[in-house]
């Protein structure tokens, strides 16, 4: 059944996991509940950092670094810029009708319960997690896989970024009024 960490004999790893998990969930909640968007953003950054911590825990160092760079470094900055640009603060956040809040909470509980229930219902993983001992997540291996096996998606991702770029420009470009 559920693999309950034995807190009395918790290993370091387990303690770290619990700690990180707690931070992740808590900051995620705080992100949502914060009135001030800036606070939200900051909580979100913390959340991202905690996730990076999980990555490190799972020994995915490269990914952790990339994660921090992309999310905390790029995406969050983008968010913050936008927030600043719009000069948002607490007061700008509109009143939420009770029904929406209720609906949100209901659906949250529902989907949580449903998904967790399914996973609990499912057959538990029996036995040890195998460990081949091979290196599978070093930068080297990742690079090989990314640029050999996954070369096409890699290139294709560039198309995605190109589209996003064109799109963003398209959406923000002022037209010359030539009539």
């Amino acid at each position, binding site marked *: 059944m559920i693999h309950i960490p034995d807190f009395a004999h918790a290993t370091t790893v387990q303690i770290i996991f619990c700690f990180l998990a707690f931070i992740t969930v808590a900051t995620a909640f705080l992100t949502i509940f914060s009135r001030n968007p800036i606070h939200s953003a900051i909580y979100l950054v913390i959340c991202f950092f905690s996730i990076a911590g999980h990555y490190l825990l799972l020994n995915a160092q490269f990914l952790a670094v990339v994660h921090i760079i992309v999310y905390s470094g790029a995406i969050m900055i983008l968010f913050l810029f936008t927030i600043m640009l719009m000069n948002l603060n607490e007061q700008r956040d509109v009143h939420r009708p009770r029904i929406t809040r209720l*609906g*949100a909470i209901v*659906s949250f509980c*529902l*989907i949580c319960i*449903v998904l967790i*229930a399914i996973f609990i*219902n499912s057959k538990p993983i029996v036995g040890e997690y195998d460990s081949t001992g091979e290196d599978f997540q070093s930068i080297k291996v990742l690079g090989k896989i990314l640029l050999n096996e996954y070369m096409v998606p890699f290139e294709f991702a560039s198309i995605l970024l190109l589209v996003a770029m064109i799109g963003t420009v398209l959406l923000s470009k002022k037209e010359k009024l030539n009539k």
Partner: protein
Amino acid sequence: MEMDTNLALVLVLAPFLGFLINVFFGKSLGRTVSGIIGTAAVVVSFLVTIFFFNQITLTGKAIQITLFDWIQISNLKINLGFLLDQLSLLWLLFVTGIGSLIHLYSISYMHDDENMHKFFSYLNLFVFFMITLVIGSNLLVLFIGWEGVGLCSYLLIGFWYKNQDYNDAAKKAFIMNRIGDLGLLIGMFILGSMFSTLDYATLKTAIAGAANLNIPLLSLAALCLFIGACGKSAQIPLYTWLPDAMAGPTPVSALIHAATMVTAGIFMVTRLNFVFDLAPDVQTIIAIVGGITSLVAATIGLVQTDIKKVLAYSTVSQLGLMFLALGFGAYEVAVFHVITHAFFKACLFLGSGSVIHGLHGEQDMRKMGGLRSAMPITFWTMLVSSLAISGVPFFSGFFSKDEILLTAFHHNKALYVIGSIASIMTAFYMFRLMFLTFFKDFRGTEEQKHHLHESDGLITFPLMILALLATFGGVISLPGNSWLNEYLAPLFTKVAGEEHHLGTTEYILMGVAVLGGLLGILIAYIKYFKQDNVPESDENITGLAKVLYNKYYVDEAYDVIFVAPVNALSKFFRDYIETGLSALVFGLGKVTNELGFQGKKLQSGSIGLYLFAFVLGLCAIVSYIFLAQ
């Protein structure tokens, strides 16, 4: 055979040709010419009929002619063919004979009408259909003629179409006839399914040869056929159209509604005597219906003031007597009365037409009187005919009516009494008519009086011929020595002449009948000659007379019982059921439409709601698949 076929075609088609000529060229030919053509066409038929008649009296063999296949039904094949036998030729004789006379009469009578060519074309068409009816070799050909004459009757009653009342009368005639026609059709269906044929000759042999006949079914067929006859021959309950049919020009009344068409029912029953003989219950019904009709019509006739209406009810009454005879299986007696009736009733109608013509359209007897001197020929011919119809001895009607009463006496005393009373009444109202019309002083306007004159030769000639026939027509079937019975004998399976020997009873009965007739005449004489009574004007009629005058309110009753409900039903269907059904169908559309309208509210534009639905849907699907078991 070839010759016969051709001649028969001439016989049938001559009037049709006349019809076509008059339809297409009548207007340009002029009134007289079109009248002559019309008359000539019928005369041709008459001559051919005489030829055939001679032939058959010599050989005694019926002529059967088949033209071509007509309707194909699984078990019966119906062809268009003719049967010229004793019965049909007899009928043809007086149809074309009297037809010719009436055509002749009409030339003068209708001369002032702008649509005279049409009149003649319709008359010709009528004769055509009547001939078809009579000489058809099977029931379906008869049915062509049957409906065809109904159509012509419709056209001619409504001849003066500008008057919607006349059109109503025409329509009524047609529809009531059609009720009968339905009966006839059903009768045919039953006969057809029973014997796989509708041909008279084969039907007769089939019935004769059939073992284990289904008598109840056959009776049903006979009853249905009789309903058909009721419609055409104006018997209770389908008689009300005939008096109304007097809306048509008088020659039409004479030809169609007295002499020929209305006798089609009798013709048909006589034709199918072998069917009716096997259905004694139906025969009883026929007799009862006939008897009651004759009495009821006679009572109504007692108080009518319209000269043609009197004659019309008299016709209904006489037809009733004929059915009385048919009901007792005395077909030849009925036929005899048909013939004599054709003579004197045609004469009476034509005479009344002459009167009306003389009075420029006046039909109310209360405004007549004293026409004897102005119109002597008309008077005398009508008097003769009245005597004949009243059963005064040695006129034709005496013989025929007497035979009917004799037959009735032998079979059913009650019906005999009814028939006798009807006869007495007949004598009364006929002479009431005579006294009111021809005796005493003229009660019309001065202007009418000024113009009183005898009609011209074209009118009086047919009158005289018919009066002669009405007088001496009885000779064809004198008691004890009946040419007619012998002539018709091949048609009937059983010899129906048990009363051929004249005994004391018969003579007593004869005397009673004569006395009755004279009694009727006497009462009329006292009331309308001696006491100088003139019928009250409409609003002063009271009591029983009022009921009679209003024809027992039968028309009104029919209106209330049949017409009004159908109309109400129609209105109900139209206003409620139709709209209801329509609304139901529209309603389905409306409901879906309304759903669409309500659904729009759900599509509120709120992303939150959309996502909420998304999440709910997701939860529902996932939990249905993975948690439901």
